[in-house]
């Protein structure tokens, strides 16, 4: 089916609009849908990441043999389901999984958040600073420089503490 708008590309986005209670179906290509502001799923699924990862691996055969001794899941099974079998998989699948995680987590590879037993609280000074910075941005955008100057001083005051 061709896009109803440009009539050039294949329609991949199918919409149902409600107009006065009547359903109206529209079929658009991704580009035209984008122009209309229709949401296109931006969430990268783990399977996409896995597939693109596996495709660029030379030693796919090698990889398929890796199995977790703890739960028995193979890397290939993980690839098809997107779910790990046990905590030990994180080590058992080594570099192969590390690379998947890095792609799925936007290049991040190491946990920097809390560890078990820690309690994370929001630092009130940090919170205040963030609020002030936001207000400052808004003041500058609104060209309210008098207010911006006041906010700047207040932030500087916080930094001294």
């Amino acid at each position, binding site marked *: 089916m061709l896009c109803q708008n440009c009539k050039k590309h294949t329609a991949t986005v199918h919409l*149902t609009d*409600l107009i006065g*209670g009547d359903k109206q179906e529209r079929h658009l290509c991704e580009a035209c849908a*984008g122009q*209309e*502001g*229709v*949401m296109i*799923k*931006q*969430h*990268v699924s*783990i399977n996409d990441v896995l597939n693109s990862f596996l495709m660029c691996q030379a030693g796919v055969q090698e990889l398929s043999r890796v199995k977790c001794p*703890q*739960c*028995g*899941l193979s890397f290939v099974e993980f690839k098809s*389901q*997107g*779910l*790990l*079998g*046990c*905590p030990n998989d*994180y*080590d058992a699948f080594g570099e192969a*999984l590390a690379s*998947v*995680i890095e792609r*799925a*987590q*936007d*290049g*991040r*590879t*190491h*946990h*920097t*958040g*809390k*560890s*078990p*037993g820690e*309690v*994370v*609280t*929001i*630092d009130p000074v*940090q*919170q205040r600073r*963030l*609020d002030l*910075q*936001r207000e400052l941005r*808004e003041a500058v955008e609104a060209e309210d420089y008098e207010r911006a100057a006041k906010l700047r001083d207040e932030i500087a005051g916080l930094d001294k503490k």
Partner: protein
Amino acid sequence: MKLDDLVHSPGEWLQTGGPMSDVVISTRIRLARNLAGYNFLGRATPDQRRKIERTLFEAISASDFGKNTFYVDIDKSDMLDRQFLVERHLISRQHAEGEGSRGVAISNTETLALMINEEDHLRIQVLRRGLNLDDAWEETSRVDAALESLVDFAFHKQYGYMTACPTNCGTGLRVSVMLHLPALKLTNEIEKVFRAAKEMRLAVRGLHGEGTDALGDLFQISNQVTLGYSEEEILTGFRADVIPSIVRYEQEARRVLTKNKPAALDDKIWRALGTLENARAISSDEALFLLSHLRMGVVLDRIKHIDLSAISEMFLATQSAHLQKRCGQRLDGEERSVARAEYIRQKLSQARPSRN
């Protein structure tokens, strides 16, 4: 407290508007946790699943917060009850449709729900009205700490909290904010939201999460990256940047509509009210569509006699399982449309000012 008691209440967390409630419907914080020493659920035997459920249930019962919760055995619940909980955002669709022993502990105020044996052994979920990240985080963190003093969660030095799907590992933290963006939709500017979200590595989804449409102009924004940022950094992204800027876009779009096209705007709002007040049968999609316009009319003060809380209640109570629980019987699609229209008419007639 038990599940059926929820039918006639809109949920405490729904009753007040909360901060930025003209645009922000709700804030949800979720933590994924797994017990150390067990396989993840895909590789757990039925016996292990039961043990995991029992261990977590006992830990919840032994905790302070647990005293104010009630437990629903999802495996033994019928489909209607499961659907009802999904509609109230207390369990996920996946949890409703899953298999094997699993359940959910729900606080009496419905602000806290602990899903056991969903994709991970435990999902701690905290809900708040409006934009309320710190308050929601405070409760999440407290519940997490209380449970951690009783059970061991699987933790890895490099990867943090280990989860069945590696897209959740690290903090296991998923923050979702539900936004009502009718004006950006009407002015064809919703693209701005997607751009802002994309820049911040956030996902935009419809009303009921992944792969669902943005029915009723409701959009869910959530973080995609859970590893390599601290909990506070993730929260800060929402608090300081993304959400306030999207809220400003929407408010600006509403201001422009009110100023430049007041007649067109009022036409939409009042037609929505007219239809809702008079329809004898209405589908859930159409109800959402019209309620969205009505909500905009109320927050913009174009309609003065209806409360925001009444609108929230209608959004909730017009869903299929809610209608059936209220009527106390199974209804087919057509019957639901009739029951829905009847409920809405009744609700709106209560709000109607007396005419002198």
